[in-house]
């Protein structure tokens, strides 16, 4: 065991995977010699050679398209899109190709690849370094979509993703790379190095895809969330004094329906939180399934707290970010409904 930041945990997952399996290759913009703009692939080129970890030309479609060819060959490519905001040029390759190859060839060809991308805001990145495009991925059958909220999960889920026989998208909340963040941007942050969830096994371990975690048990209401918003929910729970059950979904597709049903059936109240824009966000799907499966248990409307339906602004970042105040207000409203 070692104390790791989320960045170190991700680096370690790559390292262990490359060490165990020669077929694992890692590439992307600036990931080779430099080790990635967030340092998630630091040291891999030196250790495993430039044929297994290398820089790529700046073409996201090319990166994913080449990875698909490699996966079809029999390798296990793990690629980085420098920011989730830059996945759109690769979207056709992701949707029309990676997600479809097993099905359309009836299993003749497969596409075991991992696409990592830093997601979310809170770093004054403006509209093209802050987006949370998960809903654009969860609508695509054939993909799995994962989003860790701490170093241990980041490593365990990435290792599971690399072992998975299908294409997996790993969204990494960049605001959590160095420490948990609860939305109180004016207060100091506790680094992972001093946090229980920063205690990560050095070797190989994996956290199964498709299993949610109860981040904090409670009985008043259920929070369905993931990534950075786990900590915002916790802050709001503490501030309202409510006995909130916070579910960290971890995998968005396929969704852990059992865990969701069990919790909402118990609490009868549900608040969904994400940073992505509201309309047609992943919260809509969560709201729909909760309502479909727990209709008779619900004592209040399922409520969404999300990013506004605007581009992510630069200067108004904290007015955009669904912080503890907005979340606390939703908790209270749901309890009073």
């Amino acid at each position: 065991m070692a104390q790791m930041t989320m960045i170190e945990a991700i680096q370690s997952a790559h390292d262990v995977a490359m060490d165990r399996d020669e077929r694992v290759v890692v590439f992307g913009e600036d990931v080779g010699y430099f080790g990635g703009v967030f340092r998630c692939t630091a040291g891999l080129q030196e250790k495993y050679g430039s044929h297994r970890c290398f820089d790529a030309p700046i073409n996201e479609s090319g990166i994913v398209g080449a990875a698909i060819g490699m996966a079809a060959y029999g390798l296990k490519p793990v690629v980085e899109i420098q920011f989730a905001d830059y996945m759109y040029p690769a979207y056709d390759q992701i949707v029309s190709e990676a997600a479809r190859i097993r099905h359309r060839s009836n299993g003749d060809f497969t596409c075991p690849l991992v696409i990592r991308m830093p997601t979310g805001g809170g770093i004054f990145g403006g509209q093209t370094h802050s987006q949370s495009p998960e809903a654009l991925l969860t609508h695509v059958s054939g993909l799995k979509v994962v989003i860790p909220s701490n170093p241990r999960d980041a490593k365990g889920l990435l290792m599971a993703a690399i072992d998975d026989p299908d294409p997996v998208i790993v969204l990494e909340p960049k605001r959590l790379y160095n420490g948990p963040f609860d939305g109180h941007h004016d207060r100091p942050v506790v680094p992972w190095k001093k946090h229980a969830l920063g205690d990560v096994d050095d070797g190989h371990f994996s956290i199964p895809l498709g299993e949610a975690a109860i981040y904090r048990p409670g009985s008043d209401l259920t929070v369905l969330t993931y990534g950075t918003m786990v900590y915002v929910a916790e802050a709001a729970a503490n501030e309202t004094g409510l006995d909130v059950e916070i579910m960290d979904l971890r995998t968005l597709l396929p969704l852990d329906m059992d865990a969701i049903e069990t919790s909402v059936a118990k609490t009868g109240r549900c608040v969904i939180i994400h940073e992505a824009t509201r309309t047609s966000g992943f919260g809509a799907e969560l709201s729909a399934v909760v309502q479909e499966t727990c209709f008779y248990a619900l004592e209040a409307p399922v409520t969404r707290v999300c990013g506004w339906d605007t581009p992510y602004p630069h200067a108004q970042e904290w007015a955009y970010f669904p912080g503890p105040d907005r979340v606390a207000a939703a908790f209270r409203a749901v309890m009073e409904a």
Partner: protein
Amino acid sequence: MTDHPLSLHVPEPGCRPGDEPDFSDFEVPKAGAVRRPAIDEAPEKMRDMAFSIVRVLNRKGEAVGPWAGTLSGDELKQGLRDMMTLRHFDDRMLKAQRQGKTSFYAQHLGEEAVACAFRRALEDGDMNFPTYRQAGLLIAGGYPLETMMNQIFSNARDPLEGRQLPIFYSSKDHGFFTISGNLGTQFIQAVGWAMASAISGDTRIAAGWIGDGSTSESDFHAAMVFASTYKAPVVLNVVNNQWAISTFQGMARGNAGTFAARGHGFGIPSIRVDGNDFLAVHAVAKWAAARARAGHGPTLIEHVTYRAGAHSTSDDPAAYRTKHEFDAWPLGDPVARLKAHLVTLGIWSDERHIQADAEILDEVMAAQKKAEACGTMISGPAPSPRSMFERVYAEMPDHLRRQRQEAGY
């Protein structure tokens, strides 16, 4: 500066319905006239190859020049058979589509030599990333006609279990990657596959395929960039059959002299070949494959040919191009040209041709009979709807299992 008003240049083909077909500005070099560079010649020394056309068969049906001689008489006879098979296959499947036995078909008329000859230049284990117009790769590779038809009929024996549009075959064993309906996407995948082979210290190579119109797609660029940067062992084929549905090749080519010229911006050796000359296609393919295998990296080949038929069964070219354009097409008919060559060699004759033609038609019809016995789109039996839920993932997740149950399968 001048105040002259600007205007938009919109390229137009030489002739439209009603006009006389005219290929007078299409330059056809003499067979044998184009040189054959060494496989390790520097790319910048062979730029000329992108502006001429490698041709082997002359008008008399003789094989001439430095690119001749890559195939034996038996191989050539097999090549002729393959092209004739593809032509009959197309013909039968077009009819089957009109009879409602399948929903869709696209033929290869006039461009049979490209894929059939190319396949012969590859080794088993190499991988093609084809478009919907390279069934010749399967036929020349010995893939069963009946299985192709099962796919086309979406019947109970369709290896893809009805999931895919007709002719979107897939066969890993035959080096034929599962076809996408999205144009251009697979060009870069071919490069990725080739990179994987290089990463693994393997000796196998990949071949990418794209149409003239589809070279405009952005993934063409992705493929060229990656192939150039990593010197991937890949042969990148542009099949210039002059048309992209109703759009003539000039719309995609723009102000470039040729599609092959696109390679020059990437330092990728680029070569144009007479796509209706079986021997030339084979020789150029061999040369490109040898370059890839020897570590000299990618080659771009422009196969100059002509789409003699409609784009697909959804299309009627009479609306946008002149009839009989194919008759005026200067590179002729690939089947007739290879036949003439075999006759010139003294190993073939009109009689044998007629006989072979009848035999092949019988074979194709026999395969069709067997395939139809397993069902067509009108008669069924069709694959079970259950299969549509399968292999979305390696393991069926709960939500799909629930949906499958709801659907009743």
